[in-house]
């Protein structure tokens, strides 16, 4: 492109130089076209250092007054600025090229940066301008639906709830499939939950985030060794910028409400069934009220999220300070979350830019009250004919209606469900967790050898989770006969994770051989230390329950990871690229013999566009082929000290009497000394493309990932170990897939632009081995996905060789002529006349094969309209609400009455426990969801004599879902739908003020 531009400019200049100079202003006419020779309207043309200006018309033509020797400046959004000197000619035609900053953009990769142009691995970067907008409170939701190959499903509608994130299907079967998060160079702990916080990422203020970089293939991720198999997400926060102070204030206020309730019997339907089929005693239990318990427990929630940031430079010290305050209630009554966050970035440079120092400190405090989530299930099953508040003995049990039994010591029916609202309002589960992540990074460019850089990064991640659970003495949920029951407990946990990293980087360009080298080698030390404090249990009055003193006041689990790593980049002629990485990881979690692992990767890329045969193409503006191979590891899901057998002392209330003394016993733990990380070998082949000056661009990736030494919790032969199940390295699995994304600028005029980005992912998961002796035909696979409500030990899935993980393994339902399922009648798959486990068949899987993301943005003058949609296909969900409670037994089979799913009206099932294993309950959960729709208006400089910019916006989150699924919400990460906290629809108004 550049060559071509230069060529045009040279022609223009040579013509001009042949003419005589004339120092008078004269009218110059011309035309602005793009490289495809179509005219560009709306280009601003100014004369440098003068006030003269003009704009090109619809045909791209312009007229402007200028003098020979002046310089015309052409500028237009989306194009590179162009300066053309005026000679004696009266016509100046110019060609503007599309701004290809995308290729010059610098991308953060592990331990360094890379030009996007030079990338050899599968790396996707999403910057702030492309984030999801609206009332978003946790960072990962900013990029939901934005990255091909990355599935992000929010876990629930609870304030601050986390998400299930899967990059290329994950690499593990039973252990962790969570990617590694690296925030400003600080890798977070894999299983990084914090007591009293629903989601460890919720401590990061989304407003502080500049970019997400997702490392998907082994070439990009292998530099993170044993933690890289599930991909890496690097979060970079906003930094200080030089220049005058800018202040940004943003505020978002929203209201949320649930869109759908779990369908249960109405009070009248319920009454009719009990009156028809119940015993005399059960009919007596019926109440006179009509209570929709789901209406009782849910509410309209509010949120306010306010952020103030200051950035600029003081005494040559670039800084950014941001303060965030967020306060929200949940749609489930009593759920509350407050977050105050502070983030400071200081980015000074010293010694003539030879030493760069980046200091980043982020701190966040939450104040939360967690609703008793059991109330969600209770509201679905509580008798709808009973009132919310007691009419009889209202002074007892907080005034809530409860099932009473005069003969029992507590006055309550033993083991009966308790009032859903009472469960919420009488339990105070409150916490004040805190977290701070920070680091200081020195990057020194050697004075005597500027090609050599040394980088030292010292970081920490400390958090404290502390809270209390209080249940009053009179609450039915904690009632003890005679009083002084209840709960008044405390919990506390602290985490101290430290990081020290050092690397040297040498970059050299050898023009003679058209080569560039970039070599890096480093060392890293990560220590993760948690302290869990143990406390006795107390009753509501604060008196200790006897013998609840913990055996130990605290426990301090800890693990350390020591690594050596290196990377070499070589490029020839800016066309051929080679990247090789190597990491050696040592983890304290493994026995000394298995402790160290080597994780190599290699990648090649070919910039085809720059080859002679494509250089002249007007259609193809970018074309690059990338291939990579590498090995990564996965070590989460392994206990810190699992490699040797240790003994645990039992608690004081689990002691045994010998004579007059009660002895606490020593229990040996399971023993599997050879445990090591899971290992994934990945191959990736991809093509990056761009057409028509990159107005259409994107990439397509094909990948294969083979994981071996899967960490599976497998049964131990009885008698062979201290525990019946143990996590062992057994089995292998394959993920194959295609990722495709395309971004287009459909319309680009001065007043109107329309951008559409689309991505699609296909991933096929196959388990390839599960046994020590490979391909053991006798091994049927192991079950997962426990079904609630049955006889226990009933599972919906099987993980078996040749099938995807989470493949349904159920009985095939038999239907009558009317198309209704017949209870307990299933297809006898093997025809032996009996229905037993041999008749379970492997069917669909709960894992989606295809998922799509679509982002749309239309700009018209000062208006912007955007939306994000996500879709998922070929995924199925087991509707456990239907199966567990859609039966007569649910209503009449217990000591008190319980409400049933309306599915009972369909099936009339009585409640045979085998029926839970019917494929009738598998439902297609493919869906199309509009995550977000957003309308904003840019007032621009709305005040005279001020630089202040104002933008206001309105957005809707969770706009609609189109699905065949009959339950509450088709997005169920586990594939088993059980009393989920509903994801609400949120309507938000916001403003953003910048000055």
């Amino acid at each position, binding site marked *: 492109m550049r060559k071509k531009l230069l060529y045009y400019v040279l022609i223009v200049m040579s013509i001009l130089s042949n003419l005589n100079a004339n120092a008078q202003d004269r009218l110059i006419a011309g035309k602005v076209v793009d490289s495809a020779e179509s005219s560009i309207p709306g280009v601003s043309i100014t004369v440098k250092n003068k006030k003269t200006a003009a704009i090109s018309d619809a045909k791209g033509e312009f007229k402007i007054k200028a003098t020979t020797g002046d310089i015309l400046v052409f500028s237009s959004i989306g194009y590179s600025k162009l300066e053309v000197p005026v000679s004696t000619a009266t016509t100046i035609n110019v060609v503007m090229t599309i701004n290809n900053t995308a290729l010059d953009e610098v991308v953060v990769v592990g331990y360094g940066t890379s030009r996007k142009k030079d990338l050899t691995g599968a790396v996707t970067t999403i910057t702030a301008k492309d984030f999801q907008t609206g009332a978003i409170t946790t960072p990962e939701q900013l990029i939901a639906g934005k990255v091909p190959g990355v599935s992000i499903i929010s876990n629930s509608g609870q304030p601050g709830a986390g998400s299930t994130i899967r990059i290329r299907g994950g690499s593990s079967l039973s252990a962790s499939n969570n990617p590694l998060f690296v925030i400003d160079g600080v890798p977070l702990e894999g299983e990084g939950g914090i007591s009293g916080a629903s989601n460890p990422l919720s401590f990061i203020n989304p407003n502080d985030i500049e970019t997400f970089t997702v490392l998907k293939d082994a070439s990009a991720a292998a530099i993170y060794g044993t933690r890289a198999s599930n991909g890496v997400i690097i979060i970079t926060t906003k930094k200080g910028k030089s220049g005058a102070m800018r202040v940004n204030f943003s505020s978002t206020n929203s209201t949320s409400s649930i869109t759908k309730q779990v369908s249960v019997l109405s009070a009248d339907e319920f009454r009719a069934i009990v009156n028809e089929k119940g015993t005399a005693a059960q009919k007596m239990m019926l109440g006179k009220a009509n209570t929709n318990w789901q209406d009782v427990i849910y509410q309209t929630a509010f949120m306010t999220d306010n952020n103030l940031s200051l950035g600029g430079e003081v005494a040559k010290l670039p800084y950014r300070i941001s303060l965030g305050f967020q306060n929200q209630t949940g749609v489930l009554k009593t759920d509350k979350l407050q977050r105050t966050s502070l983030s400071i970035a200081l980015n000074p440079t010293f010694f003539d830019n030879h030493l760069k120092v980046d200091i980043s400190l982020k701190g966040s405090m939450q104040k939360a009250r967690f609703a008793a989530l059991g109330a969600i299930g209770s509201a679905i099953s509580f008798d709808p004919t009973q009132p919310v508040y007691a009419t009889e003995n209202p002074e007892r049990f907080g005034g809530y209606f409860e099932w009473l039994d005069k003969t029992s010591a507590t006055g309550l029916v033993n083991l009966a469900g308790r009032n859903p609202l009472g469960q919420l309002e009488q339990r105070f589960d409150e916490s004040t967790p805190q977290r701070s992540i920070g680091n200081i990074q020195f990057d020194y460019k050697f004075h005597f050898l500027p090609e050599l850089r040394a980088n030292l990064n010292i970081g920490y991640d400390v958090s404290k989770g502390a809270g209390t659970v209080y249940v009053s003495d009179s609450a039915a949920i904690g009632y003890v006969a005679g009083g002084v029951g209840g709960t008044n407990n405390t919990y506390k946990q602290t985490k101290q994770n430290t990081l020290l990293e050092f690397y040297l980087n040498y970059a050299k360009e050898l023009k003679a051989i058209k080569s560039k080298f970039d070599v890096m080698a480093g060392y890293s030390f990560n220590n993760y230390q948690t302290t869990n404090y143990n406390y006795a249990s107390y009753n509501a009055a604060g008196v200790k329950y006897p013998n609840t003193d913990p055996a130990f006041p605290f426990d301090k689990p800890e693990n350390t990871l020591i690594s050596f790593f290196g990377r070499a980049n070589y490029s020839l002629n800016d066309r051929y690229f080679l990247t090789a990485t190597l990491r050696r990881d040592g983890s304290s979690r493994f026995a000394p013999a298995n402790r160290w692992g080597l994780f190599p990767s290699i990648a090649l890329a070919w910039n085809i566009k720059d080859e002679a045969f494509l250089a002249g193409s007007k259609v193809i503006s970018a074309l690059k082929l990338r291939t990579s191979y590498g090995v990564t590891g996965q070590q989460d899901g392994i206990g810190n000290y699992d490699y040797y057998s240790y*003994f645990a002392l039992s608690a004081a209330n689990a002691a*045994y009497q010998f004579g007059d003394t009660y002895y606490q016993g020593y229990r040996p733990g399971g023993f599997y000394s050879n445990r090591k990380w899971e290992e994934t070998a990945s191959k990736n082949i991809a093509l990056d493309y761009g057409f028509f000056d990159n107005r259409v661009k994107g990439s397509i990736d094909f990948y294969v990932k083979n994981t071996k030494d899967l960490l599976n919790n497998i049964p131990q032969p009885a008698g062979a170990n201290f525990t019946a199940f143990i996590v062992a390295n057994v089995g292998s699995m394959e993920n194959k897939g295609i990722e495709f994304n395309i971004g287009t600028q459909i319309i680009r005029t001065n007043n109107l632009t329309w951008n559409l980005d689309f991505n699609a992912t296909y991933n096929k998961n196959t388990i390839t081995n599960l046994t020590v002796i490979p391909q053991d035909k006798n091994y049927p696979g192991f079950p997962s996905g426990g079904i609630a409500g049955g006889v226990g030990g009933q599972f919906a899935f099987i993980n078996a060789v040749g099938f995807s993980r989470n493949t349904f393994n159920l009985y095939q339902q038999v239907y009558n002529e009317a198309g209704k399922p017949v209870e307990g009648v299933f297809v006898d798959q093997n025809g032996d006349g009996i229905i037993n486990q041999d008749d379970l068949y492997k069917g669909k899987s709960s894992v989606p094969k295809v998922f799509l993301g679509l982002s749309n943005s239309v700009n018209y003058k000062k208006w912007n309209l955007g939306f994000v949609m996500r879709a998922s296909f070929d995924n199925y969900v087991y509707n456990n609400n239907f199966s567990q409670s859609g039966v007569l037994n649910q209503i009449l089979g217990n000591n008190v009455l319980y409400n049933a799913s309306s599915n009972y009206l369909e099936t009339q099932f009585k409640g045979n426990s085998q029926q839970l294993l019917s494929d009738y309950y598998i439902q297609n959960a493919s869906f199309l969801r509009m995550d977000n729709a957003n309308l904003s208006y840019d007032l621009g400089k709305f005040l005279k004599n001020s630089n202040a910019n104002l933008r206001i916006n309105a957005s809707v989150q969770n706009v609609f879902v189109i699905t065949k699924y009959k339950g509450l919400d088709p997005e169920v990460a586990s594939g088993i739908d059980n009393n989920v906290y509903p994801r609400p629809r949120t309507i938000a108004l916001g403003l953003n003020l910048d000055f």
Partner: protein
Amino acid sequence: MKLNYIKIAVASVMVLMTNACTDKLDLLPTNDITAETVYKTPLGYKQALAKVYSAFALTGNTGGTGSPDIPSQIISDEGNSDFLRLYWNLQELTTDEAAWTWQNDAGVKGLKEMSWSAVNPIINGIYYRAFFQITLCNDFIRQSSDENLSKRGISGTDAENIRKYRAEARFIRAYQYWVLMDLFGNPPFVTENDAIGATLPKQIQRKELFTYIETELKAIENDLLAKGQNEYPRAEKPAAWALLARLYLNAEVYTGTAKYTEAITYCNKIKSASFSLHPNYRELTLADNHLNTTENIFMIAYDATHTQNWGGTTYLTHGPAAVPGDISGTSGNWGGLRHTNNFVDLFSDESGNTDQRAMFYTVGQNRLMADLYTGTDGYSSTKYRNKTRTGAKAPNADPSGNWTDIDFPLFRLGEINLIYAEAVLRGGTGGDLATALTYINQLRTRAYGGKTTGNITASQLTLDFILAERGRELYYEAHRRTDLIRFKKFTTSAYLWVWKGGVANGRAVEDKYNLFPIPSNDLSSNPNLVQNQGY
């Protein structure tokens, strides 16, 4: 100058790094310790022995629930995973003595109906519970070998005590192998000679296992302390004798060869070791039943403060349907256990006024078990009461009324009287009918409150009478299934009780149900195992 500082800084960082060497990777847990530490002191041995014993009583390392011994993949509700609740359910819910109301509770459905499969959580639960305790015993026996004791410098009285512990661990292992032999026939077999985590256990045939148990019990007979010499409730010689007596009584079932004479031999050993029936039947199952030292032979000790779990006698006290908390001495009932009407039929007077062992709770309960899963169908029981003899609370009583203090008799003298009589009737030598009649009438006199009005004559002493008397004397003490199998009445049509085989009036089922299937879990992880016939 500044440059130099930087160079020095960089150099020192690099030095630091090389020093931050790999021994940083050797981390140890804060509270959990290794075998070497546990077995360093005599107290450590005793605490390891405490776990060996408490594996009978508890579900895990935390009172109530929280740290299970048996993983949730085997049995999802930890509260159901203790030895007694699992064993009791298999011995009682499959028979005329008991039914459980909540059919959706793990593994319940199919027991009464005799249609269980190899994936039943209760069947799997007892299997893995027994092996958990056996594995603990194996390790303890290994750790307490004479070689290990001398290696760790433990000698003298300490070593003597530990040898006693070792004999007790062998007794407990023999007991659990007996449980596995009785329930599963041909289980896998491991001893202290098989290393942990390295062996694929071989399957043992029932006959060989019988010989092993017999040999073990005889081998440790002399190492165990005599009656009254040990700390309560640790095993003494009579415990081994009682297990031998029970083993021999059922020998024909296990091996095809009757051993009634040997059964009598071991009953006599017990009888001559200063035992006598505790005078009051009611007091056998109260919170202070540990005081019944003349009758108790081997007990599982529960304590509402120190030994808490949701199974054991907590289950037996809360379990019976409808029994008010003020009668059972708890916070209330779980609406679960009821007797079949066939069991109630064993008592000619159900009121409890004559035969006081009839402890039925009948208020609001139908005598007929018209429906298997209706809590009001079938009389309930008040046999287990968490109160002392005076009606007071136990010393360590739980204020919330959840946990109980009643100890459970795995062996008590009443059973020995019955074994003796049955072995004599079945042709065993070394005993006589007159003594047999005396032993039976001792039980009946106690049952009738010291009156002889319930006593029987020699002609009334038949095998059928023995089975019925075992029902009356030992019901809810986890004997019934074994007894019915010995009398060939478990699967056959010789005795039908309601809901046997899943039909209201009862029906015979296949003989395969005399054994439980080996859990399919273990079949797939241990290729040495062959499933029991018919499953």
